């Protein structure tokens, strides 16, 4: 088990890198996730981005 204490800046940088790897804006990504069209590794990258939102306290209310 590995325990990490990432800084908020590190998390924001990681989130930006993940978004760039998908070649989508955040709005496009959220829409793709909402309509269920994300597949394969894109789905898990979206999951990671959401987890970063959560760690930063920036997660929206979700259905």
């Amino acid at each position, binding site marked *: *088990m*590995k*325990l990490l*204490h990432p800084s908020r800046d590190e998390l924001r940088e990681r989130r930006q890198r993940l978004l760039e790897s998908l070649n989508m804006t955040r709005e496009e990504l959220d829409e793709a996730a909402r309509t269920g069209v994300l597949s394969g590794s894109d789905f*898990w990258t979206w*999951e*990671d981005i959401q*987890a970063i939102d*959560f*760690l930063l306290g920036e997660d929206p209310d979700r259905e």
Partner: protein
Amino acid sequence: MTDQALVRQTEQFADEVASLLQSTVCPDARIIAEVVENRVRVSSPLGGDKPEPLRLAIDGRQLLNLEVRWRCTWDHAGRYLSVTDSKFALTLPHLREPLVRVEYQKDRSYFPAHVQVHAESGAFGYLRAFHPDDKPPKLQRLHLPVGDRRFRPCLEDVVEMAVRDLNVDVVDEAWLQRVNEGRDRWRVLQTKAAIRDVVKRYPDLRSELREVIEADVL
């Protein structure tokens, strides 16, 4: 500022997850825990810069991945780590396409604990033809309710399903004992929480619950 008690509980939780997986279906399992102030993420190291899937073998061949993720905060009293979201998914390694997802979202307005199956169904396809939307939901968009908040499936259930129904290889013959021990601990914790929920919502039932417990003990 991160509370050290939160860090300790996070370490214990993540160690338990790693130990369960290493002793049952994934001897090389690595688990990552990230703590930022009062928020915690515990997961298999997947999807980030250095993906390291939890690999499951069937008859010696690595045919499945297992993805596990929890998001946690303190509970309302600030005493225990409380899960706000969890996700367990069995996926195909190359596509990373899920076969099945077992999810929990504490604040979801309906079916906080649910299973989503990624599959095709002729019967469901027929039903979709009558859906009023232009884009009727696929089977994987169905949220099959399972156990509600307190009695949702635990990771041990997913491990056992992988072994019994998908023939995933086990580390040794003691795997089921480890699954049962972990599941028993989980069920006891959840039962205590469920009783607290009932008493909080229906205070008049407190004495009735006590009578039931004492009658069974005696």
